[in-house]
C-alpha cells in the first residue's frame, strides 16, 4: 500500500479512536507471543475447510436451472395488488408471503411482473468461507426485481415489501412447477426478518449419500435494484411507515429505523459483494480471518439471524472489510493494514469489538453524521448508508461486547491455552453462561400496544423487558447487580408454500442474568439523596416513578436521607428473582399468574442446602480458631516459643460440604485439624523415633497447660494415630485434641524441623538399603504435605474465598458431586478445591463464575476436557507464574510419564505456585490418589454430566447430575446408619474391651448402661467411623494394584459403598504370601497328585489358584459386624 494513498478513515467517536490505536498493538504483538496460537489457528483452518466440489455437489447446475426457470416466467402488466394476489394464489394454490399488516383489499397500488434484470450468487459460497461445522449451509442467490415494476415512492409504507412478496410469490409458483423433482421448496424469513421472506430450495438427494456431501439449501432472495429509492430519505431517523401507527398523529411521528435499514439492505447486496471481493483481492488473509471470525461467533451462539443476535459472519466480514479499506478521507491510512495475517486480523477484530459497545455509542465507519439518536446498536457504513448492525438488539450487542472482552483478556494472557477456549469450546450453553434463567410467557392477544417499527410486537415487548431489567439490575449508581442480561427470542422457522407464515401468539422469552457476585447479595439499595434543590427532587421523583411504592425514604448514618429499596430475600438468586418479579409486575403487569414467569437455576443450592449465612458460619469457625491460637500463644510455661499455628482442614478454609460444627450433637466432637510449629531449637533429639516420642510428651504438656489456664472450659486428650504404613515408629505418633466446652474442638500436631532434616538425610543416604530409603522419602512427602502444603493451601483457598463470593459454594457443590458418585475416598480434598479454583482463575472463554451452579458446571466441563495423561493442571495461585516454570512443570510431567508409562505411581499431575513438584496434592503415602482407573472414571462421569448438560439445556434438572449409578459395581456394601450412629459417640469409661462384659451389657437394661456414663463427655472422634473401618480394610487387603477389591465410597452420608474386583488379579501359580486370599482352581492346572506329601511327580504342572471372592466378602462381613448391613453381590 502506498503511503500517499493510504488514508486514515475517520472513526465516528472517541472510543473508536482508542480502539484503532489498540488494534495495531494487538496485531503486531501477535507474532512474537502466540506462536502456538498461530500454528493452531492454521491447523483449525485446514480442519474446517470445506471441499466444495463434494460438499455442495450439483449446486451449479441447480442454480442454472433456477435461473432458467425464473427467466421463463411470463411478464404481466400492472394489476391491482389484491386482484393479482388472489389470481396467483388461486391458480397455483400457493400463498404470497405478505408481511404484516397484509395489504388491504382496497389498496389501489398495482403490481406487475417483469423478467428480472440480474441474477447473482452472493455470500459465503462465492467467497468460499463456509466451514464444515456450520449449523446449516446455504447458497444465496439474489434476484433483482426489475426497476420498471417499482416506483420511487415505494419506499413508503411497506409498499416495496408488498411488491417484493408478490414477486417472490410469482417466482415460487414457477419454481414449484419446474423444480418439483429437484427438491423441496419452502418460505422462510431472511435472518428472521419478517419484512423479507425468501424462498429456499432443499435439493433432493438421489441414491446413496456421498461421503462429505452436506445437506445444503439454496436461498432465493429477491432484492431491489440500486438507486431506485432516494437515499436521502432513508436515513435512520426517518419515519417511513405512517399507516402502521394508525391515525394518531403522535404515533406516526415515531421513526422507523429498522424498516429503513431493511429497505437499505435490500439494495446493498451488490455493493457489499463488490466490497468483499475487493478486499479479498487486496488482503490475502481476509478470507481466513473471516473463517476464524465465523468459528468464533458460532461457538458463542452469535449469528446473522435476529434470534441469534443479528451479528454473524456477514457482519463480521463487512466490518473487517471496512476496517481494512483505505478510505477517501484526508487523514492517515486505514485502521488495519492489509498485510496482516489471519490471526492478527482476528485479534484486531476482537480488540475492536471489545472496546466498542455498539449499543452505547453509535459507531460510524466513514464520514457521516447521524442525525438522530437511535435506540438500538449502530454500526453505520457511511458509503453505503446502511446500519450494518440493524438486526442487532441492545442485549445482543452487549453479549458481543462481553464475549469480545473475555476473548481479549484470554488473548492477553500469554500463559493460558489461548486456542481451545477461543475456537473449540462451545461457549453458549445456558447454564455455563447465566446464573439465573427466567422464562417469561408472552401472550400476543393480551398485548394491545401498537408496534411502531416492523420488528414485531414480541421484539418490542422484549426490548421493553430488557430496558426495565437493565435499569433495575444494571443501574450504575445503585451498583450493578448484574453483569449481563440476555434475552433469547424464539427462532422463526420455514413454512410451506401453501401456508401462511405462523401467527403464533404465545411465545416464551428466555431471560438470562449473569450476576455481579459482589453486588447481588445487597439487600438495601440506596437511591438518590432527598434534598431541597430542584435537581434532587427531580432525581427522587424519577426514582420513585421507576420503583413505585417499594421506594421509601430512610435516614442513614451521617444524616443523609435517601430513597431506599429494602429487599427481603437473602441469597443472590432469590434477591434477583424478587427484584425481577417486582419490577416486571410493576412495569409490564406480568407475573400475576403462576406460570407466567418461571425462574430456573437455584436447584443446585438446594442439593446441599447452601445458605447465604454459611459464609458467616465459616467465619465463625475461623474466629474460634484465632481465639484458640491466642489461648495457645498466651500459655506461660511453654518451653519453646510458638512460631505459627496453621489450620489445615477444609472447615477452616470455607471448603467443607457441611458447615463446621453442624454435627456436634449426634457424634462426639470432631476436632478441626491444625499444625503448630515452634522456634528453631537444638533441644530436639537427633533421632526420628525419639522426636516422635518427644512430641507426645510435648502434646501432653500443652494439653495440661491449657486445661490449667482455662479450668472448666477446656478438655484435652492425647490421641494416637492409627497408622496406615507399616513402620509405626518413624511417623507422627500422636495428636492433641482440645475441646472447648463452648463447642469448637481442635486437633494439634507438632511440626519439628529437625524431623524433616533427618528424613531428607535418610532418603538420600546411600549407605542404607533401597527399601528404607524409599520409606524415608514417602514419609518425607507426607511430612511436607502435612506441615507445608496444607497450611499454605488453606491460606490461599481462604484468600480466594474472600475474593470470589461464589468460590466456596462451588467447591462444596463439586465435593458433593464427587461424593455422590462415590469418588471422594479416592481424591484428596485439596485436589477438588484446586479444580474449582482453576475454573475461577482461568475461566476462559468466560469470566470467573458468579454463582455456584455455573461454577460447578464449568468445573465439570474442565474435568471432562482435561487430558491428564499428557497435561498437567497448573493452578497459578499467585497470578504471576513465569512461563519458564510452566514449561518446567510440563517437562516434569513428561519425565514422569517416561519413567512410569503405565501410571502406577503418578496419575494426576497438579502444580501450584507454592508447590511445583506436581504430586503433592495427588499422592498420599506414596500411592497415587486417585489411581489411573479411578481418574478415568472421573473423566467418564464428567463427560456424561456434560453431555446431559448440553442435551437438557435450560430444562436441566440439577439432581440428575448427582444420581449415582451403581450398576457398574461388582459388589455393594450397604452400611447400617443405625450402627454407625452408635459408633459415633463413645464415653471414656464404657467397657468395650472385655467380650463377655460386652455380651453381658447387651442383655442388661439400657438405663444401667446409661448411668455408667452419665455426666461424662463423649470422646472426640479420631476419624469418622466409616473412614476408620475402610482404612483398616485397605490396610489388610492392600491398596493400589495388588488389592483384590477397589472400594468406591462417597462422603459420610453415603451409606452404600461400591466395590469392584481387581481384574488384573487372575489365576496364578500358588506361592506363599500372594497378598490376598486365594482358593485352588477346581480342575485347573495339571494332574492331581496322589497320596500325601513327598509323592511328587517330576513332569507335573503347577496347581493354579484364584482369588477367593466369597471368602473375602465373608471376611469383610465378619469384620464389619453389624456396621455392614448387607453385602450385595451384583455380579459373580
Amino acid at each position, binding site marked *: 500500500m502506498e503511503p500517499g494513498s493510504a488514508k486514515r478513515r475517520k472513526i465516528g467517536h472517541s472510543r473508536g479512536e482508542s480502539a484503532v490505536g489498540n488494534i495495531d498493538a494487538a496485531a503486531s504483538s501477535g507474532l512474537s507471543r502466540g506462536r502456538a496460537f498461530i500454528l493452531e489457528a492454521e491447523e483449525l483452518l485446514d480442519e*474446517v475447510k470445506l471441499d466444495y466440489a463434494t460438499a455442495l455437489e450439483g449446486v451449479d447446475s441447480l442454480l442454472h436451472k433456477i435461473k432458467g426457470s425464473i427467466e421463463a416466467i411470463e411478464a404481466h402488466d400492472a394489476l391491482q395488488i389484491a386482484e393479482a394476489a388472489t389470481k396467483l394464489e388461486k391458480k397455483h394454490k400457493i400463498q404470497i408471503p405478505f408481511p404484516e399488516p397484509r395489504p388491504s383489499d382496497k389498496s389501489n397500488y398495482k403490481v406487475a411482473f417483469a423478467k428480472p434484470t440480474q441474477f447473482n450468487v452472493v455470500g459465503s459460497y462465492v467467497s468460499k468461507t463456509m466451514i464444515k461445522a456450520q449449523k446449516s449451509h446455504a447458497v444465496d442467490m439474489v434476484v433483482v426485481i426489475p426497476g420498471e415494476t417499482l416506483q420511487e415512492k415505494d419506499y413508503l409504507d411497506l409498499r416495496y415489501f408488498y411488491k417484493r412478496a408478490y414477486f417472490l410469490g410469482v417466482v415460487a409458483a414457477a419454481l414449484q412447477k419446474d423444480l418439483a423433482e429437484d427438491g423441496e421448496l419452502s418460505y422462510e424469513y431472511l435472518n428472521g426478518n419478517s419484512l423479507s421472506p425468501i424462498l429456499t430450495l432443499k435439493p433432493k438427494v438421489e441414491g446413496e449419500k456421498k461421503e462429505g456431501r452436506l445437506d445444503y439449501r439454496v436461498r432465493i432472495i429477491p432484492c431491489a435494484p440500486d438507486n431506485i429509492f432516494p437515499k436521502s430519505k432513508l436515513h435512520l431517523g426517518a419515519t417511513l411507515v405512517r399507516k402502521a401507527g394508525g391515525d394518531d398523529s403522535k404515533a406516526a411521528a415515531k421513526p422507523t429505523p429498522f424498516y429503513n435499514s431493511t429497505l437499505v439492505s435490500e439494495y446493498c447486496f451488490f455493493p457489499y459483494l463488490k466490497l468483499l471481493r475487493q478486499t479479498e483481492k487486496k488482503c490475502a488473509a481476509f478470507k481466513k480471518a473471516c473463517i476464524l471470525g465465523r468459528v468464533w461467533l458460532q461457538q458463542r451462539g452469535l449469528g446473522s439471524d435476529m434470534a441469534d443476535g443479528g451479528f454473524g459472519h456477514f457482519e463480521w466480514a463487512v466490518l473487517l472489510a471496512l476496517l481494512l479499506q483505505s478510505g477517501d478521507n484526508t487523514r492517515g491510512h486505514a485502521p488495519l493494514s492489509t498485510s496482516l495475517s489471519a490471526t492478527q486480523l482476528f485479534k484486531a477484530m476482537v480488540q475492536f469489538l471489545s472496546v466498542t459497545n455498539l449499543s452505547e455509542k453509535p459507531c460510524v465507519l466513514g464520514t457521516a453524521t447521524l442525525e438522530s439518536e437511535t435506540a438500538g446498536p449502530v454500526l453505520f457504513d457511511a458509503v453505503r448508508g446502511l446500519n450494518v448492525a440493524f438486526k442487532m438488539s441492545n442485549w445482543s450487542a452487549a453479549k458481543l461486547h462481553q464475549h469480545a472482552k473475555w476473548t481479549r483478556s484470554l488473548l492477553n494472557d500469554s500463559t493460558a491455552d489461548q486456542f481451545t477456549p477461543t475456537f473449540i469450546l462451545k461457549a453458549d450453553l445456558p447454564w455455563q453462561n447465566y446464573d439465573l434463567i427466567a422464562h417469561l410467557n408472552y401472550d400476543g392477544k393480551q398485548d394491545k400496544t401498537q408496534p411502531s417499527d416492523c420488528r414485531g410486537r414480541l421484539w418490542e415487548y422484549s426490548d421493553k423487558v430488557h430496558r426495565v431489567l437493565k435499569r433495575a439490575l444494571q443501574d450504575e449508581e445503585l451498583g450493578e447487580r448484574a453483569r449481563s442480561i440476555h434475552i433469547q427470542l424464539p427462532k422463526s422457522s420455514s413454512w410451506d408454500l401453501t401456508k401462511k407464515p405462523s401467527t403464533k401468539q404465545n411465545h416464551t422469552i428466555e431471560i438470562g442474568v449473569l450476576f455481579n457476585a459482589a453486588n447481588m447479595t445487597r439487600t438495601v439499595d440506596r437511591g438518590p439523596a432527598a434534598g431541597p434543590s430542584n435537581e434532587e427532587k427531580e432525581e427522587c421523583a424519577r426514582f420513585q416513578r421507576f420503583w413505585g411504592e417499594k421506594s421509601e425514604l430512610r435516614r442513614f448514618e451521617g444524616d443523609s436521607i435517601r430513597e431506599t429499596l429494602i429487599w427481603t430475600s437473602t441469597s443472590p438468586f432469590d434477591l434477583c428473582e424478587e427484584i425481577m418479579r417486582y419490577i416486571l409486575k410493576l412495569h409490564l403487569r406480568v407475573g400475576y399468574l403462576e406460570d407466567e414467569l418461571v425462574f430456573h437455576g437455584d436447584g443446585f443450592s438446594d442439593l446441599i442446602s447452601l445458605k447465604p449465612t454459611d459464609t458467616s458460619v465459616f467465619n465463625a469457625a475461623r474466629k474460634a480458631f484465632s481465639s484458640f491460637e491466642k489461648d495457645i500463644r498466651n500459655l506461660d510455661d511453654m518451653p519453646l516459643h510458638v512460631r505459627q499455628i496453621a489450620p489445615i482442614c477444609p472447615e477452616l478454609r470455607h471448603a467443607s460440604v457441611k458447615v463446621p460444627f453442624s454435627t456436634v450433637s449426634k457424634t462426639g466432637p470432631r476436632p478441626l485439624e491444625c499444625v503448630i510449629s515452634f522456634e528453631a531449637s537444638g533441644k530436639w533429639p*537427633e533421632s526420628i523415633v525419639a522426636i516422635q516420642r518427644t512430641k507426645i*510428651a510435648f502434646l501432653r504438656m500443652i494439653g495440661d497447660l491449657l486445661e490449667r489456664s482455662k479450668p472448666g472450659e477446656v478438655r484435652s486428650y*492425647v490421641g494416637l494415630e492409627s497408622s496406615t504404613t507399616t513402620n509405626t515408629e518413624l511417623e507422627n505418633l500422636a495428636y492433641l485434641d482440645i475441646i472447648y466446652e463452648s463447642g469448637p474442638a481442635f486437633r494439634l500436631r507438632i511440626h519439628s524441623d529437625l524431623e524433616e532434616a533427618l528424613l531428607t538425610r535418610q532418603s538420600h543416604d546411600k549407605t542404607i538399603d533401597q527399601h528404607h530409603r524409599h520409606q524415608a522419602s514417602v514419609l518425607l512427602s507426607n511430612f511436607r504435605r502435612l506441615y507445608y502444603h496444607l497450611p499454605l493451601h488453606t491460606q490461599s483457598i481462604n484468600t480466594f474465598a474472600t475474593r470470589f463470593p461464589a468460590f466456596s459454594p462451588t467447591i462444596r457443590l463439586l465435593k458433593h458431586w464427587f461424593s455422590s458418585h462415590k469418588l471422594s475416598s479416592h481424591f484428596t480434598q485439596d485436589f477438588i478445591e484446586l479444580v474449582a479454583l482453576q475454573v475461577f482463575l482461568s475461566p476462559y472463554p468466560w469470566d470467573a463464575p458468579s454463582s455456584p451452579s455455573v461454577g460447578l458446571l464449568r468445573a465439570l466441563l474442565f474435568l471432562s476436557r482435561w487430558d491428564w495423561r499428557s497435561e498437567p493442571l497448573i493452578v497459578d495461585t499467585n497470578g504471576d507464574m513465569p512461563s519458564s516454570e510452566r514449561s518446567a512443570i510440563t517437562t516434569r510431567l513428561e519425565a514422569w510419564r517416561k519413567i512410569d508409562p503405565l501410571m502406577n505411581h503418578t496419575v494426576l499431575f497438579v502444580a501450584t505456585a507454592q508447590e511445583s513438584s506436581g504430586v503433592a496434592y495427588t499422592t498420599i503415602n506414596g500411592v497415587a490418589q486417585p489411581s489411573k482407573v479411578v481418574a478415568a472414571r472421573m473423566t467418564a462421569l464428567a463427560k456424561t454430566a456434560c453431555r446431559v448438560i448440553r442435551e437438557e439445556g435450560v430444562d436441566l434438572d440439577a439432581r440428575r447430575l448427582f444420581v449415582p449409578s451403581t450398576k457398574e459395581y461388582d459388589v455393594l456394601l450397604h452400611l447400617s446408619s443405625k450402627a*454407625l450412629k452408635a459408633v459415633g459417640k463413645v464415653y471414656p469409661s464404657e467397657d468395650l474391651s472385655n467380650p463377655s462384659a460386652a455380651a453381658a451389657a447387651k442383655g442388661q437394661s439400657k438405663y444401667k448402661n446409661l448411668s455408667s456414663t452419665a455426666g461424662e463427655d463423649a470422646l472426640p472422634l479420631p476419624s469418622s467411623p466409616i473412614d476408620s473401618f475402610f482404612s483398616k480394610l485397605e*490396610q489388610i487387603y492392600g491398596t493400589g494394584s495388588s488389592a483384590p477389591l477397589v472400594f468406591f465410597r462417597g462422603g459420610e452420608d453415603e451409606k452404600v459403598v461400591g466395590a469392584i474386583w481387581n481384574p488384573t488379579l487372575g489365576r496364578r501359580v500358588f506361592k506363599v504370601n500372594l497378598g490376598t486370599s486365594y482358593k485352588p482352581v477346581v480342575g485347573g492346572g495339571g494332574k492331581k497328585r496322589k497320596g500325601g506329601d513327598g509323592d511328587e511327580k517330576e513332569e507335573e504342572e503347577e496347581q493354579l489358584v484364584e482369588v477367593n471372592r466369597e471368602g473375602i*466378602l465373608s471376611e469383610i462381613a465378619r469384620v464389619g459386624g453389624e*456396621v455392614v448391613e448387607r453385602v450385595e453381590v451384583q455380579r459373580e
Partner: protein
Amino acid sequence: MAPSPQTIGEFSVLPISIPPVPSFPRNVVHYLYVRRNAPKIPTANDSRSLFLANVPVDSTELHLRALFASLVGAGRFESASFEDERKEAEAVAAALDAAPAQAVRLLAAHGKKRKREDQEAAERAEEEAAARLPSTWSRPLRKSGSTAVVLLADEKSVQQVLKAIAKVHKSKKYPTWGGDGNIVAERVPQLGSVWLKAHNQLSYPDRDQLQAAVDAFSTMFARREREAAEIAKRLRNEPDEDGFVTVTRGGRSAPASTKEAEEAKKKMIEKAEKKKQEMTDFYRFQMRERKKAEQEELVKRFAEDRQKLDAMRQKRGKFVPEA
C-alpha cells in the same frame, strides 16, 4: 462340585467351612494351606510346628486352637504366632534399636556387632516392650493372605494333623471356623461396631500409661546415647587394621550441629550466587552471547511448539470446533 485338590506343592489344602453371617448369608469355604514348618534358619521347635499360609483376616489364637481341636482333638495345640505380629515387632524393635543412629552407624562402619549376651537381649526386649505405645485396636486383624506358625504338642501331632486334613477331603466334613456353634466368638473381642467403638476409646489412652511409655523410652534412649558416646570416644583413639583413626563427632571442640552446617551451606550458596550476579553482563561479549542464547532458545521453543502441534494433530478432534 468337583473335588478341590488336596495338596498344592508341599502344602496340604485345608478347606474351612465358614458359617453364614446375617449380612452375607452364604456358606463359604476358606482355604488354608498347611505344611511342616521349615524356616531357613532352623529352630528347636521346627519339628513340632506347622506353617500355615492364607490365614483368615480375623484369625486369633483361639480360632486356630478351636480349628486344631476339631481336627485332632483338644490338648495338641500349644500356641500360634502370626506373621504380621512378628514383622511388626521386628520393625518396632529395629526402629527403637536404630536410635541413636550415630552409634549404630559407627559400628556398622567398623563391621563390629555389639556383643549381646542372652541376658542383655532379654533385658532389652523388656525395655522395648515398656516403651511401646498401646495399640489402638482391641483386636488385631491379619493381613489378607498372610501366614502363621502353629506350635503343637509334639511331632506326632503334626503327623496327625496332616492325616486329618487328608481325611477331611474324603469325608467332605470341613471343620467350621470359630468352632462348632461359633463358640470362639464369645471369648474373643467382638468385631463390628463394638470394635470400632473400642478403637475410638483406645485411640485416647490413659495419660499416665502414655507418659510411662514415653518415660521408659527416654530412659532407654538416654542410656543408649551415652553408650554411643562411649563407643565414639573409644573409636576416636583406636586405629583400625589399616592404621586409620575414624573421625568422629565430639572431639575437642563442641560438635557442630546439623543446623549450623546447613546454614553455613546456605550462606555459601548465597555468596556464590551474588558473585555470579555481579559478573553477568560485565563484558560486552557476555551480553552478546546471552542474546544469542536467547534467540536459540526461541528457535528451539518454536520447534517444540511444532512438535506439540503434531502430537495434538494425532489426537483426533482437537481442531474441530465443538458442536
